[in-house]
């Protein structure tokens, strides 16, 4: 870690000496292994090893960022970047980087995960678990991640962080149109329950057997964390100050207003034990637990230093990646680990007290007609179970939730006492910790 930190410090110094006023350098070394499986067999094992540095420089209001991929040429690339920054356009709204005498929390990464070389065995356990529960076709992915990061900045940031994690996603089919999806996120090797995850996916696939065409109308929905994690992807995005600025958020001018039911308290907590735990944001500011929505009232947006200044507040230590990333707005403040505080219901109670509803395992393809109003639709998938008079009476298919995201959060009237960490593909992302929730009278539609 010392070598990474030295590199970060050196590159900051090179850039400053070359004339940059503000500099942030994040050096990242990662090793990621992935096992992909389908049809109950492993298809491919992929691995990625990377070492690179994201370097941000500012000369006055002229800013430029680069991903330095060849660290053997780090010094000359840093000098070139500063030279290019003199010709970069001015960013009028640039408000600097985080400054201060920072103190960082620390937590040790599980070296058992970092050193793991036998990922396929977990996958075979998961397949076996799903099959034993009744599934006949199992697919998914397993990731093993080990990241070592160092950050330094001209604002006083200097820190290192090491994380290791595993995440397993299992989708099991018992019939061509009957499936269940289950996840396991683990920051400790001992927490990886591959077989149990497979079993749960298999059990859900059995409950989803023989689905019938779903009906249109208003129905209560009981959503598993996996489904809510997908909706959280967009909700958290819209709580980013930059997304509010560009008009793609339903939270514009809503600070202090009721934006969810009183049941909902949403925090971003990068410090809790999770697979997305991190000690500092991408400006090097120590991360903290931020309450975004408290008992349904919008308390705060997420900020980096620049958006904080523009909104006449402070950074919330949510600076996102400084380099562009796929399907994101560049340099937007972002959530690291959204959490909805748990309630006091059992899932059984929720079902038994629902007269006319659906129990939903998962969803995908959430799209907005208008981000600023929150009008959206999403397509539930995997186990979609019909609830009538407090009991699950069968499975349905081919439905869509076509409603409004603000209305969804305002309609939540019950939260389970147990929460689960979820992270799946590009849908339930970033990793979040969520309870099962019930939302009343959601609009369900289907194809003609």
């Amino acid at each position, binding site marked *: 870690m010392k070598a990474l930190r030295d590199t970060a410090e050196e590159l900051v110094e090179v850039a400053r000496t070359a004339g940059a006023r503000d500099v942030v350098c994040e050096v990242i070394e990662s090793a990621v292994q*992935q096992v992909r499986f389908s049809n109950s067999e492993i298809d491919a*094992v992929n691995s990625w090893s990377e070492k690179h540095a994201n370097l941000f420089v500012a000369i006055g209001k002229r800013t430029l960022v680069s991903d330095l991929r060849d660290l053997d040429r780090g010094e000359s690339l840093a000098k070139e970047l500063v030279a290019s920054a003199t010709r970069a356009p001015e960013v009028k709204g640039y408000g600097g980087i985080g400054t201060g005498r920072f103190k960082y929390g620390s937590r040790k990464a599980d070296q058992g995960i970092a050193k793991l070389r036998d990922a396929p065995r977990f996958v075979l356990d998961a397949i076996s678990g799903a099959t034993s529960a009744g599934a006949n076709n199992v697919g998914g992915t397993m990731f093993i991640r080990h990241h070592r990061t160092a950050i330094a900045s001209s604002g006083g940031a200097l820190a290192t962080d090491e994380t290791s994690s595993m995440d397993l996603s299992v989708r099991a089919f018992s019939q061509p149109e009957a499936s269940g999806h289950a996840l396991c996120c683990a920051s400790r090797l001992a927490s990886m329950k591959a077989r149990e995850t497979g079993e749960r996916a298999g059990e859900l696939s059995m409950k989803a057997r023989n689905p019938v065409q779903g009906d249109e109308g208003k129905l209560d929905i009981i959503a598993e964390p996996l489904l809510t994690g997908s909706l959280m992807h967009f909700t958290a995005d819209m709580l980013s100050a930059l997304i509010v600025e560009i008009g793609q958020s339903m939270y514009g001018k809503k600070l202090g207003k009721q934006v969810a039911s009183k049941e909902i308290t949403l925090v971003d907590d990068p410090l809790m034990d999770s697979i997305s735990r991190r000690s500092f944001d991408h400006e090097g500011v120590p991360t903290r637990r931020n309450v975004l929505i408290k008992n349904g009232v919008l308390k705060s947006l997420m900020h980096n230093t620049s958006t904080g200044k523009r909104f006449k507040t402070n950074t919330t230590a949510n600076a996102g990646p400084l380099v562009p990333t796929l399907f994101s707005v560049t340099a937007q403040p972002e959530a690291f680990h959204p959490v909805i505080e748990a309630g006091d219901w059992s899932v059984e109670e929720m079902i038994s007290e629902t007269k006319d509803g659906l129990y939903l395992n998962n969803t995908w393809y959430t799209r907005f007609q208008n981000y600023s109003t929150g009008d959206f*639709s999403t397509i539930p998938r995997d186990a979609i179970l019909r609830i009538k008079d407090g009991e699950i009476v069968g499975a349905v298919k081919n439905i869509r939730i076509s409603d409004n995201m603000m209305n969804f959060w305002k309609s939540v009237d019950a939260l389970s006492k147990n929460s689960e960490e979820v992270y799946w593909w590009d849908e339930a992302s970033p990793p979040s910790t969520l309870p099962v929730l019930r939302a009343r009278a959601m609009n369900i539609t289907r194809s003609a």
Partner: protein
Amino acid sequence: MLEEEVALSTLKVAESMGKLLLAEVRLEERNSRQLAVKMGQVDSSSATQDTGMNVRIVLPTGIGFASANSISKADGKRLVEKAFRQAKNAKRRSAIALSAEPAVQTSWEVRERKPLADLSAEDKVDLIRRIDRAIMKTRIKVEGRYYELKDYEIGGYFANSEGAKIRSYLPRVTLDSHNLVKSKGDSAQCIRQWGASGGWEKVEEWGLEDAHVAEVRMLKKQLDQGRAVKPTTMDLVCGPEVAGIAAHESCGHPMEADRIIGREMSQAGRSFVSPDMLGKRIGSEYATVIDDPTVPGSYGYYPYDHEGVKARPRYLYKAGLINEFLHNRETASRLGTRSNGSSRAENYLREPIVRMANTFVAPGDFQDDEMIGSIKEGVLMHSFTEWNIDDKRYNQKYVSREAYFIKDGELGCPAKKVILEITTPGFWGAIDAVSKRIELTAAECGKGDPMQGMAVDTGGPMVRLRGVRLK
């Protein structure tokens, strides 16, 4: 310059490891620049040079893929060892096989009349500010006004253990545009993308100022004069953008062979199409959808795929019949056919998987005005905003961004937020006319795990659907 010697040395190491079906090496260098402008002011700019390599080893027991962001013989050796071990450890019961394909040795490039790398940041900022000023001049209330302009050049060198050697150079440029028009207490969003393979001359062909002015004026008219559709069954004309998204979502994706055989089952999902459905009817005789990587200058252009297979147009739906799947070498072998060159990876860090390129509805013989002229009562859905489709690619939804009522063959007032929620055979089976003139729209298609964004075009002519339910 990407060194052939490194690739060939890496392949030698692979061949020395033991018996293998295939070893592939890909070297890549990419220079990319990105500029974000918010409400006329630059919000961020970035520039990155990236070089790296990957090795893919195919054994009967599995596929191993390893990559690193550096290029050397030592890296190649290390990646081979890792990928070989991974392929071996996968321990598949059903052996992997690959279709036999010619080992192509060639080089190709997309030429730039105005090289992207020659453009200064000022030139780019100036372009976006001109768009912004043109919008402001309309005096329409437009919030957001956020643009991301990205351009890059990808140099590649591919070689495999069968003797293929392909050198390539591909420049691309793309603009994402986000606008939110407000009027009379209501709002309408517009998120659009332009993209091409080539130099800055492509950007100059887009007519971005006029396009944006027309768009915000149209959205204001939709907001001010639009009337809701009473849910009913009527005729619908879909504009090229709507035809294109339907071609992409409910034809291109379900015809990806990796999805059909289940390879994407836990992410992007499976397909309502099964291998035995080749030749089965999915739409009317007017429903022909082509995926063609070879359209010059298109955003999804490529002449050889990432397995070194020559690209060609693929007729996915042909005259209403399921005609041809999109294949890579693995899926082609599994289904007893040849690859049609559909394997692509976002960059050297990702495994190549089956992808679309430029997917569009084939042109027919109607003039655009004839499409509307024959409708007694209906709707023209010119463009869309919200859309989605289920993971078997059977139930889809499109909500209009621009739509108009049609009465006695004439366009009437704007129709507000028209919803088409329909099945795949419902959509393709209802087509009874297709116009002559095709338009393509650039898009970024997401698939794979980790997610890989892929440059594609979608499009088509106008298509007319008889008797569909609108909401």
